[in-house]
């Protein structure tokens, strides 16, 4: 039961890489992940269909290695689908027959519903139990909360939560805040998306957008816009977990293993959450935030006791 979850059984997941990295870096990254204590790994491109550092068979190879290392592997999918070619790729992923799929758009749900159990990603906009229940009827077995949903709302969810459905939260990383037809990285280079020359590969953690007061504000990641601050819910691992089954860590170009290790130590009770937060803060040059979780502005940083 979700409500009875304790930190001992909370699992850690690694979300899909949000950025455009060269193939070699991706392979190295997942090789290192094999020996980390993360339980679930989401693989694949969820942001821009033009990014093709790895071929499908490379991804499958990565998936197999991670599976051999004891990880649960899930194939993630695009949040924004525009072209029929993208739907073709989506169908290949949805019918892969071996690995579970994370649906990040209703296009994927339409392909998966009634065919195989699936995971509902954060961009599906599941805001209430009736919406969740409909997707459960179609085969949803796990849902990732929309990033702006608070602890208070999650608690209200739990009363009507269908049995056996797992809840995952975005617990570490720059928040995905928006998707667009326009590529903002290309725009920063004054070129249109069709001539992008894959310029986002030069920004392994996205391209910083600051206010005119030099405040790091947002991060441009191709067609996706992220928060500059890193969302951090490590404190929620230190006590009985309020209905969270899985804590998602979003990959960054450096220190991901260290982040996983810190979360794991807090999970196992060997590291105090405040100390963990201090250590994590040193890995996030543009600051931490957790406002959404406390029913505040997403960019706010609340102490563990603030907010409802």
């Amino acid at each position: 039961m979700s409500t009875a979850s304790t930190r001992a059984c909370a699992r850690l997941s690694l979300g899909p890489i949000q950025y455009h990295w060269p193939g070699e870096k991706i392979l190295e990254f997942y090789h290192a992940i094999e020996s980390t204590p993360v339980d679930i790994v989401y693989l694949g491109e969820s942001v821009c269909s033009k990014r093709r550092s790895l071929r499908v068979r490379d991804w499958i190879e990565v998936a197999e290695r991670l599976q051999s290392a004891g990880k649960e592997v899930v194939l993630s999918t695009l949040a924004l689908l525009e072209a029929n070619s993208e739907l073709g790729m989506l169908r290949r992923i949805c019918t892969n027959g071996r690995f579970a799929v994370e649906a990040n758009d209703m296009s994927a749900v339409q392909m998966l519903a009634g065919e195989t159990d699936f995971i509902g990603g954060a961009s599906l906009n599941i805001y209430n139990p009736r919406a969740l229940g409909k997707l459960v009827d179609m085969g949803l077995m796990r849902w990732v909360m929309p990033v702006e949903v608070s602890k208070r709302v999650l608690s209200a969810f739990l009363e009507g939560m269908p049995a056996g459905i797992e809840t995952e939260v975005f617990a570490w990383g720059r928040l995905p805040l928006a998707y667009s037809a326009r590529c903002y990285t290309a725009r920063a280079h004054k070129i249109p998306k069709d001539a992008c020359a894959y310029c986002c590969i030069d920004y392994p953690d996205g391209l910083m957008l600051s206010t005119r007061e030099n405040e790091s504000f947002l991060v441009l990641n191709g067609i996706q816009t992220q928060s500059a601050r890193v969302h951090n819910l490590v404190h929620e691992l230190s006590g009985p977990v309020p209905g969270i089954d899985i804590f998602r860590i979003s990959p960054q170009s450096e220190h991901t293993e260290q982040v996983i290790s810190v979360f794991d130590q807090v999970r196992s009770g060997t590291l105090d959450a405040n100390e963990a937060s201090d250590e994590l803060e040193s890995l996030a040059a543009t600051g931490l935030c957790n406002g959404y979780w406390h029913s505040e502005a997403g960019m706010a940083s609340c102490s563990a006791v603030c907010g409802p």
Partner: protein
Amino acid sequence: MARACRYAQNQPVNSSERHQIAMELVCPAGNLPSLKAAIDNGADAVYIGFKDETNARHFAGLNFDNKKIGQCLAYARSHGTRVYVAINTYPQPDNFTKWEGAVDQAAEYGVDALILADIGVMDYAAHKWPELRLHLSVQASATSHEAVRFYAERFGVKRAVIPRVLSVKQVEALVSNSPIPIEVFGFGSLCVMVEGRCYLSSYVTGQGPNTFGACSPASFVRWTETDSKLETRLNGVLIDRVDKDEHAGYPTICKGRFEVNGKTGYAIEEPTSLNTLPILPELLRIGVAAIKIEGRQRSPAYVAKATRVMRAAIDACKRDPENFIPDQAWLAQLTSLSEGAQTTLGAYQRDWQ
């Protein structure tokens, strides 16, 4: 049960039928004067919302209460104009009943369609009011025919409004493969992010379109004068800074000026409005079923002008699509209504992307 719906249910579109589609003009109404302005100037349908966060234009002084909605329907009925009610935000567990109430109220009035985004609300409406016509709101973020099929097959949705992210070619492919008619945005303020998946406002203020029904709520906006500049802030975050003699736009995050790679500018989009007049024949040819004007938050004068121009343009285009050229006076009028006094084709044009 719902009162009889006056509006015949649209059938799936096939290519031979596509040219005969009426291309309905759907106009915004944030209050009764705007509704009358839309109807008097040629709207085929108007869309409205209730006075709360159940719709995506939840602004002070805007929208309809129970009493006003009756007057609104009476006026629309007497002019043969359809009325759609937008209940297009996402309820949460503790306020779901408010959305149920909105659905019931609209259904009891016998409105022509509900415009919905949340599948929980859709499920409620489809069960409680099976005769009531449902449209998919742009806030549901459906950008592919598979997503549209999802809503059509599982909730009986009869029309989908699509986000402003597809090129004309992509709209054409979607229309061809969609099981239901497609409505697109034709004129008005431009969301450059996929609608329904933009949390920029809630990131900065805690309130955003999905759950609160407003982007950059006015209560968080501050205009500050310094020695020679005017600064606009949203919950303290500097969105733009202009010279005192310059026009300062409303601090919508995506239309602000920021620094990227050491350069200051409109990193996301300039203040501009969408205008599809130049591609109207294309939209007609590919079989778009309806064109929507954005702007329930705008004045009756705005609604009147935008509706009048779009009505004239659609009529001219339908009479002679091959030779349709947008009238300069129409373009000038739409530009005068636009953010930053400029317009764009947005994502319809690939170069914009």
